[in-house]
């Protein structure tokens, strides 16, 4: 490695650093994607849970006592109010999920273009190195 670096011209060294930065960017994008996956998983779980709650609330009769746990206290809530809250929450989460889908698509596109550019760079570097060694 050291010998090849020594023999390589400055252009190759530039390319190498460029490649490194590109690789870093790629790994960052990949990290973002996996983070996106994680968060999305959580959101889908929450949506499922909220839908269950909503179903149960629909099944409760009007006079039933409903409480919401806020911090350490149980706060009594109106049934209708609780239902409205849950509905709003489901709406919000689904909107968020959609947003994340878009973001994910964006990230994947970026990832692909980065990969391509890295491959191109590698090929160019190999060509230059082969020429230098020849």
């Amino acid at each position, binding site marked *: 490695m050291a010998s090849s670096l020594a023999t390589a011209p400055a252009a190759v060294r530039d390319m190498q650093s460029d490649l490194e930065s590109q690789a870093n960017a790629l790994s960052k994008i990949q990290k973002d994607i996996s983070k996106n996956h994680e968060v999305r998983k959580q959101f889908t*779980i929450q949506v499922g849970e909220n839908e269950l709650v909503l179903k149960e609330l629909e099944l409760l009769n009007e006079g039933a006592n409903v409480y919401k746990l806020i911090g350490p206290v149980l706060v009594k809530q109106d049934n209708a109010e609780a239902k409205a809250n849950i509905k709003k929450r489901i709406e919000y989460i689904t909107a968020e999920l959609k947003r994340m889908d878009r973001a994910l698509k964006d990230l994947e596109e970026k990832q692909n273009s980065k990969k391509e550019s890295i491959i191109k760079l590698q090929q160019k570097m190999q060509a230059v190195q082969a020429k230098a060694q020849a």
Partner: protein
Amino acid sequence: MATAKKGTATPLASAFSPEETRRAVSRVAQAIADRRADLARIQGFFADNAALVNLVQRLPDELSHQIMVPFGGAAFFPGSLIHTNELLVLLGDGYYADRSAKQTTEILHRRGMELEAQMEAIKATISDLEAEAKFFESTAAEASEGLVEIREEYDEEDTEIISSKTEASSSSGGISDEEHARMMARFDELEMLEKEAGSTSEDEGDDDDDDGDDEDAGTSEDGEENGETLSYGNEHDNVSFGASVSGSGGNGQSQGNAQLKSALKKLGEKETLQGSSLAPSGSTSITNSEVQASLRKAVSFKDENGQIVSSSRYSSGPKVSSSRDRQILPGGQKAFTGSIVEHDEGLSVIEQPRSNDSEKPASSASSSRPMSRFKMQKGGR
């Protein structure tokens, strides 16, 4: 060998390297193990749920229960449970509701059903993954055994030659007379149908009949030449003619007659052509004219597929061509069989996406069914 000339033979080991297949196998195995762990966890929840249902059902049997109350981590106090029919049920996401024991068991049953659905889903994914694993394993085994994949381009020329040869032998046997008789009979049936439809006049039927004569005389000689090329397109012809006829049927009778005539003429040509390669001749004309007859009745009828049209039509018409329609298929396949069996395109199409799938299971499986947070909590206790 001819295969060496037009096909390629690649050892499977070069397309799927042993290490890669092994890696894929292990990855799928890992995914299966993950699913199994999920399944076990959910089965645990399910058992807990069942136990809880049991407890909640028994609680209101007594007004109060003598219990040992846990106090801190180490000590217990004797105490008693009162208000045994009043439960505060966590519905999820921080919402609680006051419920009676009976209502609580209902909620718990619903949860149990949800859990069961989740278990079913996981079992389905596991069986999917297992099939995939089997596929990878067999591929790996085949690759290591040095199996060779042979691919041949699908060559229409060749099959045409073959089919034309068979046609020549069959068509030279003088079908045209028999053909003609059959066709005439069919046209008569058609006429009957049209009369049944009630909206056709006598002379139109005559026209059709005459056409039948003309076209038969005209096409019997060029049938042999074109037969082999056209035999491929027969199904499409069916469709397109059906469509054109439906259009004419939709317009008024007078205009429709002329178009029908020309359509029939063309159909008759096709018919004889088809007759040379397919055993039951005239199936095209029958199906299409069935369509015509039907159009008399139901003008708004639009067909995208001649076959479907004719079969659906048979409610009113006699069973003239229901049997013939079926015969089209075996006849049509006859022309292809020799090449399709060897043709490998389908296989390769299946294999390629499959090999890409090796990356998928982890991600696709993970998103299969979300697990409710409170259920996890419940299971953790």
